[in-house]
């Protein structure tokens, strides 16, 4: 899922302090799981902002809504009838949701309430780590399910490098060497011969480095 972190409340206050009618829009998917922008976080943020503005002596209307997702037309349409009541929408969805809202509702300012970090997993409650960088050409079949693009600091395809020490990466003692993990896993799977086969040079044009991307499926287009 997409992992995000809520912005510091001081930053959020700076973004919304000039408005009098704020709608805080949460998202029921990824940001709920990483406890950054779900219904609970919307409620807490709304309460905090209400108290902040009351303390300042400012009369601000703050409403809450949590959409199923903010990356699909149907869900964003749900707020069409009410959005004109507000001067600004503080979206706690990932960057995707904030942008889609802004595209849909061009006359209402949309501001982000979270910093979108990466695509990753929940290792345990409160700890999320990166697993995928959407490189567009998945080679996990060759690397025993461990991604060298997102987990190797040098994104090596035929690692490890000389800096791999005791299974840790040379840039950070806490960071596992992805290639150590790959080799260990291939060993467990009894497929260490796969490691001997060289992986060819990657075509990076499918990665973000090749420009903003799009997927079109003519077979499902209406």
């Amino acid at each position, binding site marked *: 899922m997409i992992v995000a972190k809520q912005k*510091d*409340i*001081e930053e959020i206050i700076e973004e919304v302090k000039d408005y009098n009618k704020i709608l805080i829009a949460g998202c029921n998917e990824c940001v709920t799981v990483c406890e950054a922008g779900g219904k*609970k976080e919307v*409620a*807490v943020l709304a*309460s*905090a*902002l*209400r*108290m*902040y503005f*009351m*303390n*300042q*002596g400012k*009369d601000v209307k703050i409403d809450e809504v949590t959409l199923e997702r903010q990356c699909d037309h149907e869900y964003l349409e749900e707020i069409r009838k009410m959005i004109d009541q507000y001067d600004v929408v503080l979206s706690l969805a990932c960057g995707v949701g904030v942008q889609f809202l802004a595209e849909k509702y061009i006359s209402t300012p949309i501001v982000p309430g979270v910093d979108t970090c990466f695509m990753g997993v929940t290792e345990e409650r409160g700890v999320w780590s990166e697993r995928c960088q959407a490189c567009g050409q998945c080679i996990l079949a060759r690397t025993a399910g461990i991604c060298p693009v997102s987990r190797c600091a040098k994104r090596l395809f035929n690692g490890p490098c000389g800096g791999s020490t005791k299974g840790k990466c040379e840039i950070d003692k806490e960071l596992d060497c992805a290639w150590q993990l790959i080799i260990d896993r291939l060993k467990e799977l009894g497929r260490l011969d796969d490691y001997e086969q060289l992986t060819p040079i990657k075509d990076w044009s499918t990665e973000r480095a090749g420009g903003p991307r799009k997927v079109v499926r003519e077979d499902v287009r209406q």
Partner: protein
Amino acid sequence: MRLQYPTNIKIICLPCTGKVDLIHIMRAFEKGADGVYVAGCLEGTCQFNTGNMRARKRVEQAQKILEKIGIGGERVQMYHLSSSEAPRFVQIAEEMTEKIMALGPNPIKIAGKKKAA
């Protein structure tokens, strides 16, 4: 034991302090509470394992937020005691009351009165 404790305290009973959520604490202050304290079981004695420790974490979260928005993090506190420790309960009630009296009323109430005036 028929002990006396300050009358300005409203008690909300819960099966476990693990049921206290951050939003409950926030709403209490939003509605004008001057202070909130969560009295949970002693560490290690929670019947539901970690309810009291979860409450502690949530109280700490609340303290951070309240400090940042200008209400004051010291207005919310977590206490651990056994349900049989009546004198401790009284001591906590008095301690909290004293602390909140020293801090003064919830700034929102003052700001509200200023506006009305």
